[in-house]
């Protein structure tokens, strides 16, 4: 960053834009260009839109970088812009009351940004901004100075593994495709990101689209592909827009198209906006979808990397994986491998949500502990309540309890703990979350997202969901927990694809770690977390009730009786368990149990 400059970086991710980021950027730009400023100032001051830096809860985030020194503002609205501009940018003294707090600092400082490094730093819509940070040098280098085997070796040595969930070695995958003697090969970026709670790929594609394209180019060079597809869910409209723009820029500069970098190799990459079915996380389903068919997994007689689109070798990597590739080529395999563990190099991006103080997109080295992520990056549990568990890896992941907090986040350790890396979703649960209800929540998603092809997943998942439904509604039966276990492991064992093999995870892991809570639901017809409505009772504590009548007024079912200034009484027959009385009582006289 050149000295003597003022750069205003306005976050322009999807979250920020919905919080008014575009207006904030516009306001800054207007002020920079306003006529009563000196031309020399205008020359060295600019306002950039940058990618998401992960802390979307506090959008709009604005960095003001004066002579290399950065100040971060959070929750900026456009009407705050004139004061920041006046006092900080022109006046030199930051507006303290709006700058980021310690929690924000620890959120950022405890991360290790590799794949997200450009997000929040450069303008994702500007190819030159990417070139300024040595963009496309790795690709140029790969095409001009490296043999495919060298690239593959380097990727293998970096210990990069697929970030899509299964964690297959990227280098080996490329090698399979490379070894097939076939003219027509494909490289596919899977930007479908099925998990509704994950947004890592989206942020990377929005915030650093050229890194994804560069990764694909390097892969194409390594395996000899002439065609690439970015398979992206259509709902990611900003990512679609930015990738489309990025591809256009690449074609204009000759980075894509015929004879790229004078290597003799052609490469055409196309955007494939897809309806975005959950199942497209499964490579074979994605291939079907690209071929124009319904996305349904097919039996893997052979590997997709050898027999994919139209029967041709096809490497499918997810966006995060691909965005890592240029960094590996630029900084070296051992650097990347050194970031992580013995078996898995680099970092991993998680979508940290749920009951933590700071939630957002976080990048930590492979091998960091869950505790680090929750307590250091996330700042601990919201309202300092008791930690209960983390659902890891999205709706097909598993839920691990406190005893696993010191587990390290890498593929093997998570498997031992009973979950998966999956989509990188991390939902933190606290004591107010019912574990059965949480499992039901995830199964509600997965039973509906089953492609319907194979029996265990199509019907079995629905049946599991229905068992959970009856447990949470107070109709659980003896043996239901065992039935869930049996059916869950049956689905895991007999399903056709990775989706079915993992979909029972939320139930299997919670039954394993929180079996008592299930039993209490079934045996005692109680929900310890006070979440399952059908299992709750509301009653009036006679001693505490002042007879103010507030509860009676708000009760929608006329279930509360009592005369003024006398203790009231709730008719259990009529109570619909809406909780209005509980919420409205100023004296804590309603008992919820």
């Amino acid at each position, binding site marked *: 960053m050149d000295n003597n400059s003022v750069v205003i970086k306005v976050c322009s991710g999807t979250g920020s834009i919905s919080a008014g980021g575009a207006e904030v950027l516009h306001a800054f730009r207007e002020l920079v260009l306003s006529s009563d400023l000196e031309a020399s100032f205008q020359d060295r001051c600019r306002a950039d839109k940058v990618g998401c830096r992960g802390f979307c809860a506090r959008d709009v985030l604005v960095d003001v970088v004066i002579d290399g020194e950065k100040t971060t503002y959070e929750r900026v609205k456009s009407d705050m812009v004139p004061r920041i501009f006046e006092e900080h940018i022109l006046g030199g003294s930051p507006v303290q009351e709006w700058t980021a707090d310690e929690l924000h600092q620890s959120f950022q400082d405890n991360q290790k940004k590799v794949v997200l490094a450009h997000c929040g730093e450069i303008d994702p819509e500007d190819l030159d901004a990417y070139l300024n940070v040595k963009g496309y040098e790795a690709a140029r280098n790969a095409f001009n100075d490296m043999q495919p085997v060298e690239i593959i070796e380097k990727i293998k040595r970096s210990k990069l593994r697929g970030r899509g969930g299964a964690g297959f070695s990227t280098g080996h995958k490329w090698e399979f495709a490379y070894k097939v003697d076939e003219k027509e090969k494909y490289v596919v970026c899977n930007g479908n990101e099925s998990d509704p709670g994950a947004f890592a790929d989206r942020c990377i594609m929005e915030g650093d689209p050229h890194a994804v394209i560069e990764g694909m180019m390097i892969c194409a060079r390594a395996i000899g592909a002439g065609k690439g597809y970015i398979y992206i869910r259509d709902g990611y409209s900003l990512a679609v827009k930015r990738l489309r723009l990025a591809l256009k820029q690449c074609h204009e500069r000759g980075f894509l198209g015929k004879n790229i970098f004078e290597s003799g190799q052609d490469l055409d990459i196309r955007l494939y906006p897809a309806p975005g079915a959950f199942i497209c996380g499964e490579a074979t389903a994605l291939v079907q979808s690209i071929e124009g068919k*319904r996305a349904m997994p097919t*039996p893997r*007689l052979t590997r997709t990397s050898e027999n994919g689109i139209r029967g041709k070798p096809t490497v499918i990597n997810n966006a995060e994986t691909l965005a890592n590739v240029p960094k590996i080529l630029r900084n070296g395999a051992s650097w990347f491998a050194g970031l992580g563990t013995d078996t898995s190099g680099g970092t991993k991006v998680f979508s940290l949500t749920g009951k933590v103080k700071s939630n957002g997109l976080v990048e930590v080295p492979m091998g960091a502990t869950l505790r680090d992520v929750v307590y250091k990056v996330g700042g601990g549990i919201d309202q300092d309540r008791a930690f209960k568990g983390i659902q890891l890896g999205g709706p097909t992941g598993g839920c691990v309890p406190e005893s696993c907090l010191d587990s390290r986040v890498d593929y093997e350790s998570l498997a031992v703990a009973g979950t998966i890396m999956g989509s990188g979703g991390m939902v933190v649960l606290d004591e107010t979350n019912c574990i059965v209800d949480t499992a039901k929540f995830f199964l509600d998603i997965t039973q509906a997202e089953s*492609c*319907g*092809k194979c029996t265990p997943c199509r019907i079995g998942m*629905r049946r599991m969901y229905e068992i959970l439904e009856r447990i949470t509604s107070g109709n659980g039966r003896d043996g239901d927990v065992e039935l869930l276990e049996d059916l869950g492991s*049956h689905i895991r064992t007999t*399903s056709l694809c990775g989706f079915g093999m993992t979909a029972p995870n939320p139930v299997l892991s919670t039954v394993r770690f929180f079996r008592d809570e299930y039993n209490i639901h079934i045996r005692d017809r109680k929900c310890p977390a006070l979440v399952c409505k059908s299992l709750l009772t509301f009653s009036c504590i006679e001693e505490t009730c002042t007879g103010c009548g507030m509860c009676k007024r708000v009760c929608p079912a006329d279930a509360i009786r009592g005369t003024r200034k006398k203790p009231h009484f709730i008719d259990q027959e009529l109570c619909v368990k809406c909780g209005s009385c509980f919420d409205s009582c100023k004296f804590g006289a309603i008992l919820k149990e």
Partner: protein
Amino acid sequence: MGSSKVTLNIDGKEVIAEKNSTILDAARKLEITIPSLCHNPDLVPFGGCRLCLVEVAGTSRPVASCAALVQEGMRVKSSTNYLERLRRTNVELLLSDHPNDCMLCERAGNCKLQELAYYYGIRENRFEGIRREYPEQDNNPFIRREMEKCIMCGQCVRICDEIQGVGAIDFAYKGLWTKVSPPFEKDLDCEFCGQCVAVCPTGALTGRMWASKGRQKFREVETVCPYCGCGCNITLAVKKNEIARVYSKKDTVNQGMLCVKGRFAYDFVHSQDRLTRPLIRINPAKDLYLHQENPYADSSSSAGFKPDPAQFREASWEEALDYTALRLKEIKDRHGPDVIGGLASARCTNEDNYLFQKFMRMAVGTNNVDHCARY
């Protein structure tokens, strides 16, 4: 690549199989029965029903034998308590979403799901829950589609696409509600070849014309289709004196495939319009034909012409044949045989036609015999 054959071991028996064949193929060579609902050797492996699971030494999960290639030295177990439990559970799951309609179902007694339920003795089902119900019916005239009986084996979808090349149906929706459907749930509007009906393992797809004509104890008569020159082999399923349904077997010149006519168009055999008595004309035909207009322009179709008692009377065979012989002899005697001709039929048997030309050439004494090979 070496040899194109591999040797593997299934249930302790060695078998030599083609390199690109599946474990299921190899097992069938050994005449080992592995249950399956979605497998069809003519179609691309589907791997959906999960009944053909087998254990392969060295792999942690059971594999679907219909969709796993054989490998040299592979050791396979086709049936263990563990596998049978998995299979049974899958059948249970299927039954938990299947109407209990065997009493009335067209396919009772000839239903693969029913057979598996019987085999695994599933009366009580551990799983219960919502079932698909589709009150809306497809109104196409040929194929009855009861999609709540569909077990999603995908054979209909695949045969329509991979063999017939029509693609009239595909999967729609997700999860339990996944359904085989024509586009936008419209009524089926296709070639109605019924290939889908032929492969359906359950009562989801049946011929409308089969309804209530009987389900079991058919007398099967192997014969040849009465329509075009393909000469497809068909099986007439006969109950009493009625053709109840028509299908074609796998080991035939047409490999079990038929077209709409060959599979569904047999109403004519038992039509009320069939001629049943010889007829002799008693009054001259109406002279319909002395103008340029089509005399039949107002008939909705030729189907429905019946002998007009004002023009014909019924006669015994003896009378009709004697009368015919008399008239033919008369004409032959007066004008010679070459003013008489015969038109044979490309729809009659070789034997009929052999006799016909022999009759014309010998009894009438003319070579004026032809047929519509030209039209």
